[in-house]
């Protein structure tokens, strides 16, 4: 027994020692500041498959420019709501976050964001005038331009697999409700976007104050639930790429990522209109390294990282050094013919944006979402099976008890 244990300990030690060596190397030389960046999944050029690793680049650039070692701690979330829950629990500390428009509006209203010092963000001029500055069309979430620097934008559309879906059925949101594709449809796994699909489908206001309208959307989603394969977020990449599902509503940029791996996929913006979103970089009030965070934001606006990010995510960029870059345009078109135009087609598609809902509305939306998620049929077979198991259990118990009593008598 002892031998056994010692050999195991030895094996573990062999694994650990090299690892410990690695840690000690990291800590050599000077103080290191850690910058916590919290971003959407698949939303930055991270060095995989030969792309630029933007965060490492920032660390090097910062050390060369300011002589301070910064380590970027980069983590990801899959919905605005989960990011908000993490941040508002007060349990974690972030320096840079990238929420979507309506969530930024909410966080401003709840005094969770810090005002930016634009002296540290000199490249703000790179942002297209539609997205930042006086009279910009798409800065509705932060009209005074005090809290947020646009990162990417895009529209929601429907991705479908051409080998599984008839061309005749496409063009409208009703594809998501088409019973023909039962078990092959994927819906958003976050309340705002999921309700959005139903609201655009029926022409309801996505920012409605009317509870009855939200209930109407809920009824539609409940109807849809039986024909869905599931509610997913970024799991959608694998599912669409390997043909596990045929239809999914998702963000336009991600379509190109999937198309790269599976050319059978196609994409359209529904005719009834769709959502236009802007994701922007913000700094939470609780940030301890606001200055470095601002420089990080500024760094993301400069040409090399901005182009790398745009080419990695395929999302539309509000940055002029990216939009006007001929090489970038060619790259987008090389992924898919007309790829560039597809991403920047804001003028040809009817769009609207999510606004922050008031406090009561938010609570209501949560309740409706819970109602949708907990709307499950147990089904007769399950009841029958369970009944049988319970009867056997109880019967067995009674049998054992009775037998014991009888035996005790002897």
């Amino acid at each position: 027994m002892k031998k056994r244990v010692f050999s195991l300990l030895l094996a573990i030690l062999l694994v650990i020692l090299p690892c410990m060596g690695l840690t000690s190397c990291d800590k050599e030389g000077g103080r290191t500041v850690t910058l916590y960046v919290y971003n959407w999944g698949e939303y930055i050029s991270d060095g995989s498959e030969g792309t630029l690793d933007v965060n490492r680049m920032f660390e090097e650039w910062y050390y060369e420019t300011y002589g301070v070692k910064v380590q970027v701690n980069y983590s990801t979330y899959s919905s605005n709501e989960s990011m908000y829950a993490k941040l508002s629990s007060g349990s974690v500390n972030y320096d840079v976050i990238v929420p979507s428009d309506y969530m930024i509006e909410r966080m401003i209203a709840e005094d969770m964001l810090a005002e930016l010092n634009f002296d540290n963000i000199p490249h703000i001029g790179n942002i297209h005038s539609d997205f930042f500055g006086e009279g910009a069309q798409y800065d509705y979430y932060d009209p005074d331009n005090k809290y947020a620097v646009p990162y990417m934008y895009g529209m929601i559309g429907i991705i479908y697999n051409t080998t599984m879906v008839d061309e005749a059925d496409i063009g409208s949101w009703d594809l998501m409700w088409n019973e023909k594709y039962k078990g092959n449809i994927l819906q958003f796994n976050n309340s705002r976007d999921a309700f959005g699909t139903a609201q655009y489908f029926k022409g309801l206001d996505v920012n409605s104050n009317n509870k009855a309208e939200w209930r109407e959307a809920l009824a539609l989603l409940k109807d849809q639930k039986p024909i869905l394969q599931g509610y997913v977020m970024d799991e959608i990449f694998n599912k669409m790429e390997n043909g596990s599902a045929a239809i999914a509503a998702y963000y336009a940029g991600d379509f190109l990522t999937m198309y790269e791996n599976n050319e059978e996929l196609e994409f359209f913006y529904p005719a009834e209109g769709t959502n236009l979103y802007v994701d922007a970089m913000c700094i939470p009030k609780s940030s301890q390294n606001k200055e470095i965070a601002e420089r990080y934001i500024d760094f993301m606006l400069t040409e090399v990282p901005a182009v790398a990010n745009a080419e990695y995510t395929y999302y539309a960029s509000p940055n002029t050094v990216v939009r006007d870059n001929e090489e970038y345009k060619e790259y987008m078109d090389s992924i898919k013919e007309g790829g560039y135009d597809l991403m920047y087609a804001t003028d040809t598609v009817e769009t609207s944006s999510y606004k922050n809902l008031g406090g009561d509305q938010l609570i209501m939306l949560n309740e409706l979402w819970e109602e949708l998620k907990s709307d499950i049929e147990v089904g007769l077979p399950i009841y029958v099976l369970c009944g049988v198991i319970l009867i056997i259990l109880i019967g067995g118990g009674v049998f054992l008890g009775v037998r014991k009593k009888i035996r005790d008598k002897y």
Partner: protein
Amino acid sequence: MKKHSLRKTDPPPASRSAQRNIFQQLAAVPHAFWTVLFIAAPMLFVLYFAFTDGNGNFSFSNITDLGQYTNVFILSIAFALIATAICLIIGYPLAYFMSRQSQRAQKILMVLIMLPMWCNLLIRTYALMALLDNGGLLNSLLKNLGLEPLPIVGSYFGVILGMVYDFLPYMVLPIFTAMTKLDYRYIEASHDLGCNGLQTMTRVVMPLTLSGVVSGVTMVFVPSISTFYISQKLGAGKIDLVGDTIERLFQNVSTYNVGAAMSLVMMILILISLTIMNKFSDEEGGMVP
């Protein structure tokens, strides 16, 4: 060995041992402190959150709000029951047959049953999902054979299959251990006394391995009823069990109060079933010589 001389001032043996006893009892103080601080206090927080509203006022509304999750609760209990029953039906004969193999084979089989137990649940669940997904290996094989694909992911069957697959080793191992401890002479004796195979099974083997069954059932039932990863992956986010709901309430919408109430109810449910289970094994235990 060094020699120790008795000091003159040594207290008499009785009080020395009493002193020592007190010193040794004090060794439990850090442990007691820790359990109060990190086991009792968190439980009190669950209670507090379950019975207060967002402003910290006492209320029962969280408990009554759970009404909308009735089906979620029923489904979770049902899935856990069914998965446990299937594990038992598959696992009991497996453990029995395993214990009838040669020593060498038993050793290898033991490693084979322990490997999945040690291997992280996330990895195994994901591997199963990747295999069974509509675009996975199984369905593409079926397609190549010209058969209809099986839409397992996103169905009740998929979730139950995931539970059975993940937790089967937890059922087999304790039963197998009980089987190997079983004295073969009992079985021979029952044959000598005229039992046929079935009678030996029900009158000798089963009662003597019941303790293994009870711990196996517990080890499958508790994680099945509280899982969220399995239903997330194999239910594709469509089939919400209690675990998923608690996870969402805490990680996505931060409504801690309802989440705490739900955890509390689940805890009580499990405590009740554990008590019943233990009663079962106690009753039987009294009978076993």
